[in-house]
């Protein structure tokens, strides 16, 4: 009898020790002084590179500017970068290393939608927030959302719906899709198709091809898609994957035979590698950085473009501008909260307007989605800048593109069942 109690006592003591140790560890994190470390849990491999390598430079630029002006809370900011190779498991390892070993007080990233859903779950369990940069699945801020999740990029329901509204007015009836076989390749198509079919019940899906993430030879998928004789093809390939796809599809007369529609590829991250070889007439969501209307011709954005050009020798990509905004968002929140402690920081960031090169934005309080607009247009090569840009651009403000609070609460209630 006494022995058993002794055991129970020992267990309680051990549990106490463990809990005590973790609390102590947390306290040590909270009181850490010296540089304010920000972990960037991101992907720097393969298809992600055209986005994330320029993004890294833009983040470094933003941090240099903050440090030159005295830092945050009187401390210098330091970025620590990790590569998850687009793998959720490695992403989680990096995240924990950044927080527990490197003592990062804030997390930016990830790039991948697949990784972001893993982060959301972890963040909720461990009560640590992160500001997702490029990860675009709408499920991150809808049904998988919790208060520790923030996101800068437009999500794919937003861009998908915007594209679907334009596509609904086009004569095309037969649709096909080509995209990587993972969250970021499949979800945009589902979002696009749902809206399109609601407005146009006559739409028919004649082909769905989802090669594995990292596939470089799209030839059989291209020929199989053309074989189904679609009028329009929705392409969710991105980064170097999109560039390879275009080079391989061109000789098959792909761009003369079908209308390409894409949620990502109007961004220089996707098309700059193609230079003036980029096909014209694609209907895309994008970042027309050199457009001569607001916010692109504003002094703030022009200055941003010049600084990036000076630093990298190249004009910005979507990764650059969103990475820069992510750092600005974090800085605005920390300044208002007066601390990096996550709970007050989250409260401070909600509905807090802050200035970015693309105008004033804020994170909505019920889904922590940034109110960044989207720009939809038709691709056209501009020899002056040696790459394609968009024409006949429609601006879709966030309040039109994003779902309302009621819609999102309904989605979450449904997902719970």
């Amino acid at each position: 009898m006494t022995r058993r109690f002794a055991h129970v006592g020992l267990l309680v003591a051990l549990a106490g020790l463990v809990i005590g140790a973790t609390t102590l560890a947390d306290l040590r994190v909270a009181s850490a002084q010296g540089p304010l470390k920000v972990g960037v849990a991101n992907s720097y491999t393969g298809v992600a590179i055209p986005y994330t390598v320029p993004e890294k430079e833009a983040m470094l630029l933003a941090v240099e500017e903050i440090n030159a002006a005295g830092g945050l809370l009187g401390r210098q900011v330091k970025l620590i970068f990790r590569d998850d190779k687009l793998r959720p498991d490695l992403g989680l390892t990096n995240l924990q290393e950044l927080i527990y070993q490197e003592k990062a007080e804030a997390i930016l990233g990830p790039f991948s939608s697949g990784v972001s859903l893993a982060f959301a779950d972890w963040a909720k369990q461990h009560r640590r927030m992160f500001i997702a940069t490029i990860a675009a699945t709408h499920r991150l801020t809808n049904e998988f959302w919790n208060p520790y999740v923030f996101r800068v990029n437009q999500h794919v329901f937003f861009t998908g719906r915007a594209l679907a509204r334009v596509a609904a007015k086009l004569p095309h009836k037969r649709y096909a899709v080509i995209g990587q076989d993972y969250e970021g390749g499949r979800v945009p198509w589902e979002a696009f198709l749902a809206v399109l079919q609601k407005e146009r019940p006559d739409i028919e899906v004649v082909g769905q091809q989802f090669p594995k993430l990292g596939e470089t030879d799209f030839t059989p998928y291209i020929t199989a898609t053309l074989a189904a004789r679609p009028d329009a093809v929705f392409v969710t390939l991105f980064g170097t994957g999109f560039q390879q796809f275009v080079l391989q599809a061109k000789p098959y007369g792909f761009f003369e035979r079908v209308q390409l529609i894409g949620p990502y590829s109007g961004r220089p991250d996707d098309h700059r590698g193609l230079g003036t070889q980029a096909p014209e007439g694609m209907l895309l969501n994008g970042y027309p950085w050199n457009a001569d209307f607001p916010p692109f011709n504003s002094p703030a954005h022009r200055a941003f473009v010049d600084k990036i050009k000076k630093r990298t020798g190249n004009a910005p990509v979507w990764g650059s501008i969103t990475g820069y905004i992510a750092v600005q968002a974090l800085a605005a929140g920390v300044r208002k909260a007066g601390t990096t402690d996550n709970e007050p920081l989250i409260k401070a960031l909600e509905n807090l307007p802050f200035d970015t090169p693309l105008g004033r934005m804020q994170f909505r309080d019920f889904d922590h989605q940034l109110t960044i607009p989207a720009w939809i247009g038709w691709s056209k090569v501009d020899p002056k800048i040696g790459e394609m840009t968009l024409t006949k651009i429609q601006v879709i403000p966030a309040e039109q593109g994003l779902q309302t609070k009621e819609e999102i609460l309904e989605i979450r209630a449904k997902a719970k069942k």
Partner: protein
Amino acid sequence: MLEFFATHFGWLTDVSLVTLQLASGIASAMFLFLVASGLSLIFGVSRIINFAHGSFYMFGAYFAHTWVQLLGGTPGEFWVMLILASLSVALLGGVLEVLFLRRIYHADPIFQLLLTFAFVLLLSDVAKILWGAEGKVVPRPEALAGSVSILGTPFPRYMLLVVAAGFLVGLALWVVFYRTRWGRLVRAARHSRDMLGALGTNVPRLFTQVFMLGSALAGLAGAMVAPIVTAAPGMDASIIIDAFVVVVIGGLGSFLGAALASLLVAVLKALGTVSFPAISMVLAYVVMAVVLIFRPWGLFGRREE
């Protein structure tokens, strides 16, 4: 049942489409064949299962990029580049063989596997250091940039070159192995390397030569695929898996097996992409599993005693 066939196989009545899928399947088969035959050749002679063979393929693509830049628009640069890139990879393979592999031919196969796996990790990092992590574009030669019409459907002219080159290389290899003295030695080494050594042949040198030839084939495949897919990290891992599927189906060490299994795997993938898009990648693995169950030594391999 009838409906099932109509949805999944109805397209087979469309002659131009079938031709197109077959043609693109055959073109991909050529890359697989070049890589798998080198892998198989090296195994047949030295009994080394070379995991790094995919890395040689990747280096072929990167060397293609570098040589095109160095040659900078000299006439016929593409063809010169193909030769130089293959030779560069052959040299790389030769150095690795002489410095490392030669020392462990008599060791346990598990050590050989570990060593070649170490090469994979090392070479992938070396490639990132030398060429960066972003994809390197290799332009197609002007004359091969357009497309030809196959029964009314455009087909990339470059792919025709790939098919032709694959056949030519296959033919050349056959001539070398069955019509030259060196080929006889290689075949003899496959049979019994100890006896060959006892008869006075310099066996280590023969092994190095074979290893270099195998590497050159992988390098050639990489250099030829570069204009289609761009040279990028990760291409080593994706090709080596497919190449192993090919040699398992065809039989390790069998040249004919590598050729036919490459065709089988690539054409199956091309046709499967139309018929069963959701599971097209699985088809080749299913064939491999069936072969492993009923003929573990492969369709054309020799049964090991």
